[in-house]
């Protein structure tokens, strides 16, 4: 399912893709699929295999662990990368809090995608560092 033609403009503003040129953004947009989730719909399911790497285009989503809401994700945020990178099932539900439009890349394609686009990998690494820092702060 190919993406809508306004996706390239939308993702140009996301920090993950901050280093890309126009044709590179277009190539990236075409590698992803677009998906839509109604309010309350689950995107990732705790314990269910076969999910992917998601980037939010529009709307917000909640992270829910054992039925407890933890935090909210918004446009430009991404999720699912941890289970893709580790090859494990998600440890949380991700639930659409509003109607939600996302880009999605299947788990099996994430490694190839990141190694082909080192600048995106670096930005993703920064994102992971930020998450780790926040978790460390929260724990301390």
């Amino acid at each position, binding site marked *: 399912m190919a993406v809508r033609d306004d996706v390239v403009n939308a993702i140009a503003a996301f920090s993950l893709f901050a280093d890309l040129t126009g044709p590179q953004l277009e*190539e990236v947009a075409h590698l992803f699929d677009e998906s839509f989730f109604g309010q309350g719909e689950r995107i990732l399911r705790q314990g269910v295999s076969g999910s992917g790497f998601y980037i939010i285009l529009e709307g917000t989503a909640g992270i829910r662990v054992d039925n407890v809401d933890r935090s909210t994700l918004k446009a430009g945020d991404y999720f699912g990368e941890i289970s893709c990178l580790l090859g494990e099932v998600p440890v949380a539900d991700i639930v659409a809090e509003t109607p939600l439009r996302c880009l999605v890349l299947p788990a099996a394609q994430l490694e190839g995608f990141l190694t082909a686009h080192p600048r995106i990998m670096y930005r993703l690494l920064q994102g992971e560092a930020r998450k780790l820092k926040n978790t460390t702060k929260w724990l301390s």
Partner: protein
Amino acid sequence: MAELGQKPFPPGRYRLIVVGSGPGGLQVSYSLSRLGVDHAVLSDDPAPGGMFRRWPVFQRMLSWTKPFAGVDHGERAYERYDWNSLLSDDQENRAVMPALMDGTSYFPSRPEMQKGLETFAQRTGIRVRHGCRWESTRRDGKDFVLTTSDGEYRTGVVVFAVGVAHPYRPPIPGLESVPHYGDFRPVETYKDRRVFIVGKQNSGFEIATGLLPFARQLVLASPSPTKLSVLTHTLVGVRARYVQPYEDAALAGGVVILDTTIEEVMKDGAGYRVRTRNAAGRELTVAADDVIAATGFVTPLRDLPALGVATFGQSRLPAQTPFWESATVPGIFFAGTITQGAAGLKKHGIPSNSGAVQGYRYNARVLARHLAETKFDVLATRERMDAETLVPYLLEQVSHGPELWHQRAYLARVIDLDRDAGITNEGIVPLQAFLDSGGGDAVAATLESNGQGNPYPVVYVRNAGSIAEHPMPPHELLDFTGAEYREQLRGLLEPVLSGAASPA
């Protein structure tokens, strides 16, 4: 059938209206009728068949009907090998297609497909008001009001089965004035010409394949690399039928395949110049005598977005619930290829086959039952089962059940294992609905693929409110009825079965 000169379903109020007379509209109408749900069917077309009355442009289907499969054509299990016939509950109306095909190919010709759909509609008595064009839609209290070329229709529930066949062109300067896939001229007129095809999906490769004996040069271009179905192990990617141009390019013949952004299409005398730039920044301008936009299709939803129907993706598919209801406007449902907008889990990135007849015909049947039960108080019958037969039954379903084969990780066979009511066959249910709707102890069996090898069964067991996923190993001959499977499944079901088998 209606009397001569008298169209069925004059304007008025109906409990349910189906719009469209392609395979999706026909299947949902047939299935509703079987459940005793009265409804009207409206269609702009003069006869049944939908897009197969015109396309594919090279007049041969991409979906097969295998005549010899070791299964009688009247059997349900034959549906796995026959991707093109609509589904009938009666043996005599099953497998309409193989009997109509001339035997020269296991891909039916377009006219054979059209004939098959017309034959099914005629034999099963599906009534359609043809030549009735749906033009606009509004709300009036709880009703939807459809304005058509024949007058106004009112209903509380409407199913749109209007296809995804409206030509789409991305906003590339100059592309708006080049012919689309649907405008393809007689193939001989491309003799000795340089043809530039924008788009590298099946429609682009179908045209390229047809042009191989005619065109001097073929260039296919789009931003991302071509995927091949034989490598993705799914319908994602260019189908084997259309791979010949790819081989021609690989062997450096007269076909060129470019992964590049198309920046502009410029008129140049009688021909064109196409300016491209790839992700590495390299610019290339290609001269061509013809440019064809094989850039896909959008859903002809007319004014439904203004009514609040959310859409997504290049095809502007309506966002849908697992039961194919608009995610944003309750009461509006979809059937046919539009149901690919209800993506389900899309495990491992693999879509369902809801975009194609062999997949969406099952969605339509599940939708009909869902509508009957939730909107019209018609309860479909459910078979009671005993614990002894459960394991072999489920293994038979994952080995031969056509719904599971065609709609992998999308439709599931669900069995309720209720402590009081006993074991009940719930039938075919969208997997997502099973996983997300909650409920008592139950098991859902699917067939799934991860894009790498053979499909394999997966069993989801819901026990005391929580669901566990259990993949089973693949089998070289795709037969999951053997002892190792019986043993594994028995072990998985044991904890829940012990509760169901002995009512409290």
